């Protein structure tokens, strides 16, 4: 079997890549895509650790499930906000986002 540490390293690498992408992208849509990658990487870490620690109460899997739920809610709201902002201001570039009020 592949040792759990390999899954943990992969999760960390993808999380870092996505985090740097999230901080550097100019487009809000791409930033949200990076957030999706980050939550998937965190889910992988939860699952790998849960299995490595032989956790019979399934805490790792339960956490990964909630991770997924929160991220689904976040992408729905986030994309709705992006759409709203684009309608009002005609741009989704983070450099131009400086107004909370419409």
């Amino acid at each position, binding site marked *: 079997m592949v040792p759990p540490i390999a899954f943990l390293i992969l999760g960390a690498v993808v999380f870092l890549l996505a985090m740097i992408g999230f901080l550097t992208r100019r487009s809000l849509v791409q930033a949200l895509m990076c957030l999706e990658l980050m939550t998937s990487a965190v889910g992988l870490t939860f*699952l790998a650790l849960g299995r490595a620690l032989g956790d019979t109460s399934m805490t790792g899997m339960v956490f*990964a499930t909630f991770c997924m739920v929160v991220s689904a809610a976040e992408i729905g709201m986030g994309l709705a906000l992006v759409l709203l902002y684009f309608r009002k201001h005609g741009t989704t570039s*983070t450099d131009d986002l400086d107004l909370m009020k419409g």
Partner: protein
Amino acid sequence: MGAEATSWFLFTLAAVVIVGCSVAMLLSRNFVHSAVFLAGALLSFAGLYAMLDATFLALLQLFIYAGAVTVVVVFVVMLTSTSVVTYDSLLQRQTWLALLVGVAFALPLIDSLNTLAKGLPSAATSPGGTEQLARALLTTHVAPFEISSAILLAALVGAIYLAREAS
């Protein structure tokens, strides 16, 4: 030996696809291409979840992420008519600062992975499948489970309220 080699092969394949798709997603100037690369990465994550005996979560990942989320992202990309980057640079001006933050975050992460590598048992045990997950979700973790359904409902209603055409 056969099973060992196969699982390493599958893991390496998924890892290469995930890292490659992530980098391609970040570097792509066309957002529809970005969304497709995202779907590829999320599909491979589903494969890894299945390798970790989390078949139910692998299916969820397949339906919700690779299916629904990708479609919604493509919709938004097309509705905001910004599918191709028009500005001169993909990156913000503060790129070096972001890299600095990345390094500052990576160093403790590497350190903790180092510690984990020594402490983790190498032979992974399989705690159980979908039945145990369902039991845990509906007994021990029933309160967060119900709250998460309320969060999803609130997000759904909020998204519809925000995105509807103002009349």
